[in-house]
């Protein structure tokens, strides 16, 4: 899959998101989708506007408190119990990794798993995604 993919079509494949219209349809740089690298890199690649995500992520890290998690730790938190599957997707098909991220992001809103940043209520998933981007060095994003 390439950058510029029709993400509406992609989203139609996501369970539960079929009815969502345009949610996530413009998400992600989806840089290269071949087997390339680890989960952390794959997740960071989900974000096209890394500069914006980094600014938001810096605030998320402040809200998370003094025990500053590494990008790898944040990647693990994001994947949770689905870690093996997400790692597999990260190395084989990043579009499908994105699907999983997006589905989890929407499920957060359903379940009320919100994260407050300067009062803005984000999904936990997107907040952690931003934090992950912020924890990587710019060149790595």
């Amino acid at each position, binding site marked *: 899959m390439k950058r510029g993919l029709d993400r509406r079509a992609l989203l139609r494949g996501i369970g539960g998101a079929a*009815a*969502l219209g345009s949610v996530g349809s*413009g998400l992600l740089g989806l840089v290269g989708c071949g087997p390339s690298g680890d989960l952390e890199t794959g997740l960071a690649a989900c974000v096209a506007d890394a500069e*914006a995500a980094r600014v938001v992520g810096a605030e998320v890290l402040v809200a998370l408190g003094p025990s500053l998690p590494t990008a790898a730790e944040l990647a693990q938190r994001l994947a949770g119990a689905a870690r093996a599957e997400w790692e597999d997707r990260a190395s084989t098909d990043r579009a499908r990794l994105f699907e999983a991220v997006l589905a989890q992001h929407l499920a957060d809103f359903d379940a009320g798993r*919100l994260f407050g940043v300067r009062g803005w209520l984000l999904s936990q998933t997107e907040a952690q995604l931003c934090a992950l981007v912020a924890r990587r060095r710019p060149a790595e994003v």
Partner: protein
Amino acid sequence: MLNDAREVPDGTLLETDVCIIGGGAAGISMAREWAGSSLDVTLLESGGLASDPRTQALYRGRVFGRSYFRLDEARTRHFGGSTNCWHGMCRPLDPLDFEERAWVPGSGWPFGLAELRPHYERAQRVCGLAAFEYGAERWTLEGEPPIAFTDDAIESRVFQIAPRRFASLYGQALERARNVNVQLNANLIELEADADARRVERAQVATLAGGRFAVRARHFVLATGGIENARLLLASRGVRSAGLGNDFDLVGRHFMEHPHLVAGAWLPSSASIPIGFYRPRRAGEIHVAGLLTPSARVQREERILSFASFFSRAAELPDFEGRLTRFIAEMDGAPDPASRAVFFMNEVEQAPNPWSRVRLTEERDALGVPRVQLEWRLSPIDKRTLWQGQRLLARSLGRAGLGRLQVLLEEDEHSWPANLGGGRHHMGTTRMHVDPRHGVVDANCRVHGVANLHVAGSSVFPTSGSANPTLTLIALALRLADHLKRELR
């Protein structure tokens, strides 16, 4: 006929079938019902045709505890009442508002929306509104749809807005009606009851020019507004020291407002999400504006009250929010990040609270009537509703890919931000309940135990919903007029 009470000779006793006290939204709506009929109606109105500082000063009182508007600035004391300055935002109560809700102590009206529905339709006409339709579909404009949520937690509705001045709208018709005697500058100072307080014998009236006279009627209707109705019952203590209708110490308690505050900002994910539905706009003879309110399902599940969020203002984005909007536009699949945030004003239902109350003070006004002290108290569920309501809205917006919400509130059950205000909606102080131990008036708005005394106005609301009160209080007043017509047949 419009008359000046200052010309009524001292000591006069006026006889009438129905004596309505208060010429505001409720009193005028009722008096119109009898215009041209065979019954004789007297309407006692404290003020004249225009505002007068001495009359307005009769409304002064003390505010104790939580800050509130000055009491003489929270309502208007001349013919037309507070419709001389109201904003005309109208909306009926929702079906759930009438129900007994296990999580809201003191909730439950003696009847449901179906009972009030025909009277709401009449109240629409009295207020000069359009048809009784408040759903979003009816008022959706081409290209300006309501927010397309993907769940049913939050619903879009509308206010119908028509700030009609009742005195100018209906004054002439009342002036022409020979059977309606509107006495301007006539202040009720006390209702005199018989020896066992079962009937009101007379209304004692005073003018600021020093005159005193009385009115004897078959039925009396107190329609002086949500604070004064309680004040005048409490001040009528010639027979019962606690006041009329106050055998169970309920008069003045359960004062409810609609807490108003900007509690959240919405950052739409796209500049092209239309918000015109929520801005006030012309629709024929009236204006309409959209609002967001929690569905009955979600109120039940979350055990919260009702609230209404409506457009307050849009603002440019500061630096951080500028970045945030770029990120969420990506997450939500929007090609064009929004450049402005939308602030919502929230109008929240307040749960009935017996410690939120109006009582008399030692101080008296120029006519010798004890002034009131207002103690407005909020409950934990009121705050939780606001906080939880913002979270629900945030979830529904995020779920639908429509942006994120910023909550401008502490997440606790007690603290309220400094920008908390009221709507000048005064409700609950003579609440309605079939059982005299739980309510001041019965289902027909008759004061329990007093055969010929009735109350019109939002003071009879057992619960307030999140709808502005005037449409509902007019519907109730029209229903009361029907009831009295049957009684007087």
